[in-house]
């Protein structure tokens, strides 16, 4: 990839984020005097603008966290199909939420615990479940003795399946109305008014992830060699893998708590970034951050403008509808993934 193409790629990414942010802030729907809703371009008044800014910050924070998490897992597992949810983080979070809801509805003496877990829009429940999933995978890996890709994927499958079984069990035990909430949550939602603490935490996680990724860029590059050769070149592969697992897991946990388990953002953003700026991690890490922010901002923008009559689409539906074909196109273009 020539330097010129790389610069062009970087410009596209940064310009893309800027353009999408601009559109997100200035394009929206208003209510006309006779009660109809129409799309309008222009500077909105301050209260609407502040909501849009909050929404944009959430989208950028969650998008970049998801993208970095996806990149971390793709490097860790040496698998271009890895997503932030491959190690069971979303199943863990969903299980936490379902458990809290069940406690509230049918927990008897423990209903207070369910209420506590559902405070701050489910942050303790979802966050606890997500962190539990990562912890179990990490402990399993340590117990088995290695963090190599195959072991980790197996651990992830086990953890995902176990939590999914738990979710199914709780759904069976719980009345219908609560079940509907979990389905809604799984489709993802970018909060228009999120607690500043949560937003700041996810922003901070993204920044730390970005910093660590840039700092370790050459190590991440060399880790793409075969396992023996990477170690022989001087990469401390065990430390690197540990770090990638924990970083990727925390980033995924942060975003699942903020926006729910949105599909395809973490999977596609690293590929999009690699397409535009090449595989060297020194450039790839910041490009991934930009790509993730752009993808989620774009999805939120589409979601804001499309109204199919049943309320707006959840953002996870938009990313899935676009992400599936986009991934297929990427695959065909490359003639298989290298």
């Amino acid at each position: 990839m020539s330097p010129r193409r790389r610069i062009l790629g970087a410009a596209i990414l940064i310009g893309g984020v800027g353009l999408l942010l601009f559109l997100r802030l200035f394009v929206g729907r208003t209510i006309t005097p006779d009660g109809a809703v129409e799309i309008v371009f222009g500077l909105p008044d301050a209260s609407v603008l502040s909501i849009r800014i909050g929404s944009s910050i959430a989208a950028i924070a969650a998008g970049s966290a998801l993208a970095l998490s996806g990149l971390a897992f793709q490097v860790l597992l040496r698998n271009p199909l890895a997503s932030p949810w491959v190690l069971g983080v979303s199943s863990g979070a969903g299980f936490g939420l379902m458990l809290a809801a069940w406690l509230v509805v049918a927990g008897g003496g423990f209903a207070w615990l369910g209420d506590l877990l559902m405070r701050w829009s489910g942050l303790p429940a979802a966050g606890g479940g997500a962190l539990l999933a990562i912890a179990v995978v990490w402990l399993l890996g340590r117990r088995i003795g290695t963090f190599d890709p195959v072991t980790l994927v197996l651990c992830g499958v086990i953890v995902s399946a176990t939590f999914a079984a738990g979710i199914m069990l709780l759904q069976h035990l719980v009345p219908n109305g609560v079940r509907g909430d979990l389905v809604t949550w799984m489709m993802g939602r970018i909060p228009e008014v999120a607690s500043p603490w949560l937003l700041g935490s996810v922003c901070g996680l993204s920044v730390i992830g970005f910093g660590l990724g840039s700092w370790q860029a050459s190590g991440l590059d060399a880790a793409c060699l075969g396992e023996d050769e990477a170690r022989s070149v001087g990469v401390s592969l065990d430390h690197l893998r540990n770090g990638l697992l924990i970083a990727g897991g925390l980033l995924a946990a942060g975003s699942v708590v903020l926006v729910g388990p949105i599909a395809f953002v973490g999977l596609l953003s690293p590929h999009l970034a690699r397409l535009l700026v090449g595989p060297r991690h020194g450039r790839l890490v910041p490009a991934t951050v930009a790509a993730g922010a752009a993808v989620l901002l774009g999805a939120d923008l589409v979601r804001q403008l499309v109204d199919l009559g049943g309320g707006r689409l959840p953002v996870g539906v938009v990313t899935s509808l676009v992400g599936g074909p986009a991934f297929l196109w990427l695959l065909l273009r490359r003639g298989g993934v290298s």
Partner: protein
Amino acid sequence: MTMRLQAATVRFGAVTALEDASVDIQPGVVTAVIGPNAAGKSTLLRVLAGLQRLQAGVVSIDGTDLASMPARTRARRIGFLAQRGGVSGPFLTREVVGFGGFALASGRGGFHGVDAAIDAVGLTADADRPLNQLSIGQQQRAGLARALVQVDPAAGGLLLLDEPFSAQDPREIERIAAILEAFAAAGGGVVAAMHEVGVAWSVADHAVLLAGGAVIDAGEIESVLSPRALESLFGTRFVPSEHGPVPASRRRNDASARGDG
């Protein structure tokens, strides 16, 4: 620089890959590790590279136990080329060769710089293509270039190569052999696992014979590589020639087939 392996034993479950192996690697010479398939050549190389944990025994370089050496320090001393190279991701050949400079301060200090190493292995025309698009032989040579960027023979560097000739045509074999000789002449050590006896004869100064995980013999190549030793190692007849012992030919009208060793 001396590398010493003492009584090394490596087991994978029920399989013993190396049993009580002891070897001394000298600097300034090319050492060939010869043995049939599954003799433990790759395991021996990985042990020497510090990549394989030992169930018993010690591997040390200049008296320091390799297991206690930090990764970067070890990387500056020892370059390793695996049997199969390759990289996950569309990295360019030039970039992959550059990975050899990971452990070096400011990426300099190996036998060659990145461009010189690429020239030396004959990949200048392909340097800006993605590595995964090259042939297996070319990828192997790229790996060799990476190792050349990584270690400095003048500082007692060591090259460990697993079957570096297996995918190469004769011209490339010649080229690689020249590089290895130059590396050894500059003071470094070279250990290459192979099963091409003829190439070993022309390139190596020392040889280590390995079979069933045990070191059969080690020393100067002329004395170690006798037709009798090779026959017991590989199970086929070898006859002497001016290019070292060669497998007895199967041609019916070849006079040497009827000759004795």
